């Protein structure tokens, strides 16, 4: 025991004002949730019964799906269109994302005052706007068709990939960067020789991930007029042709799952190879 400073007898778990503020915030969140539930008329107690009702309804209405539709050449063309849009969206999205990621990474951006905030802003703008809103905007400017879809998907992918790319760049070992800089290289050379080799593997994974989200979005952009399978979805929903709607939905889900499995395999191969 320290004689000069005997053990204090007072200790309380509740510290003012921290504990009070923390409690107030938690209470506010709970009140907001409760109020939302009341305002939007959502009854939690009936959740279980709701789901069984939903399941029964869907089973009755959407079964059996009209699978004939899936083999028509026009639908298959639409599937191919979807893949093409997703491919272009991913490709151009990733290509534009590389310089944007470089500029929006705090540690290696070539210009902290101008390019860094600008790049951050562009990436944020691309990410904040939902891909469906981009789609609707470009459809209204460029008309129906794949062009609007590709541009919308590209913008979406730019935002998606650039953020993830930049996160990887910000996590690299500063050693090689310092070394290359010290040898008198310009910023672009620093990027190519010190940054890229370190993030190569992670970035490849991100590109595959971008394909996944691009394809998933591409299947739906047609709903808002941008070409691909989604257009059929919209048409049959409007016509209340539930069996065909079910067929399109099933094909969308199946294709996305296949794509995800392929991506997972590709990612595993890369992880093993590195």
């Amino acid at each position: 025991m320290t004689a000069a400073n005997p053990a204090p007898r007072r200790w309380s778990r509740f510290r003012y004002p921290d504990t009070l503020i923390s409690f107030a915030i938690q209470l506010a969140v709970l009140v907001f949730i409760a109020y939302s539930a009341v305002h939007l008329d959502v009854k939690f107690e009936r959740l279980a019964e709701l789901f069984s009702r939903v399941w029964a309804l869907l089973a009755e209405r959407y079964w059996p799906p009209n699978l004939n539709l899936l083999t028509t050449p026009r639908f298959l063309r639409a599937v191919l269109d979807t893949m093409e849009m997703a491919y272009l969206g991913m490709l151009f999205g990733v290509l534009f994302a590389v310089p944007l990621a470089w500029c929006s990474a705090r540690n290696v951006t070539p210009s902290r005052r101008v390019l860094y905030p600008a790049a951050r802003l562009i990436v944020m703008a691309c990410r904040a706007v939902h891909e469906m809103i981009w789609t609707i905007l470009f459809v209204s400017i460029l008309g129906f068709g794949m062009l609007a879809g590709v541009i919308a998907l590209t913008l979406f992918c730019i935002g998606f990939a650039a953020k993830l790319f930049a996160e990887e760049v910000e996590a690299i070992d500063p050693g090689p960067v310092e070394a290359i800089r010290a040898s008198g290289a310009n910023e672009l050379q620093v990027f190519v020789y010190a940054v890229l080799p370190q993030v190569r593997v992670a970035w490849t994974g991100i590109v595959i991930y971008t394909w996944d989200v691009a394809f998933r979005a591409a299947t739906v952009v047609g709903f808002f007029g941008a070409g691909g399978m989604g257009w059929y979805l919209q048409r049959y929903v409007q016509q209340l042709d539930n069996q065909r709607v079910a067929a399109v939905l099933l094909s969308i889900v199946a294709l996305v799952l296949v794509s995800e499995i392929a991506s997972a395999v590709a990612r595993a191969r890369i992880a093993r190879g590195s």
Partner: protein
Amino acid sequence: MALTVAPGLGMVLRNRNLRLLRAAAFAAVIAAIAIVCLHQVMVVDTDWARLGGFAAVMKTTGRFIGIDWSLLPLLVVPVIETLMMATLGTVVGAILCVPVIWLGALNITPSRHLAYPLGRLLMTVSRSIHEIVWALIFVSAVGLGSLAGILALAMRSIGFIAKITAEAIENVDKRPIEAMQATGAGTLQVFRFAIMPQILPVVLGVLIFEWDINIRRSAIMGLVGAGGLGLTFHRQMVMFNWPGVTTVILAILALIALGELLSHHARKAVT
């Protein structure tokens, strides 16, 4: 010495050339596919005549510039409802996650060969189906309105929340558990003092993260009739009120920015 070095150097050069060749071939394939796709999009699919040229396109884009100030007071309720939808969607999703997490975490799953793959499959399916698709399903099942949106967001959120939580449970540090057991604590106490403090921050963090993403998603639920700002957006579009459309988009961006701010600080406080 020169004799032993030269063949080695030759091999290095050959390997390097091979790698460059492989990279070039890869790039060529990528470009070839891109050209095929571009052809389909730009040549086959696009009716350039109707677009009318660059000037016409710019004019159309110009229509969106401008804010419809009269719309602002009408946006207050949809903005709040969008926020509510995102919140409830996350909460319901978290509740629905519980069985999925139980199935999909290796150390607590009842069966490694059946239940565990099922759990992971449910997580994948949840994430693979686009929120618009979920919304269409639920609008069809429970009708137009925010309930469909909430359920759609919930189903979409399950995948990520369950995945992160299951991983946290699988990676729990066993050492504090051992220490609590050594003091003679009961099972519930071990859970409360050794396991919960490790998992709770992760769970809260992912819930806040998903809530933030759900704000972005809930803004468009209304496009298919599932409530929120999306409905306002749709109305402005069909009324051809282009500045109105821009105003709604700005409102959505503002809401998302607010969400990101709250989410950033909340996650810092919790983790």
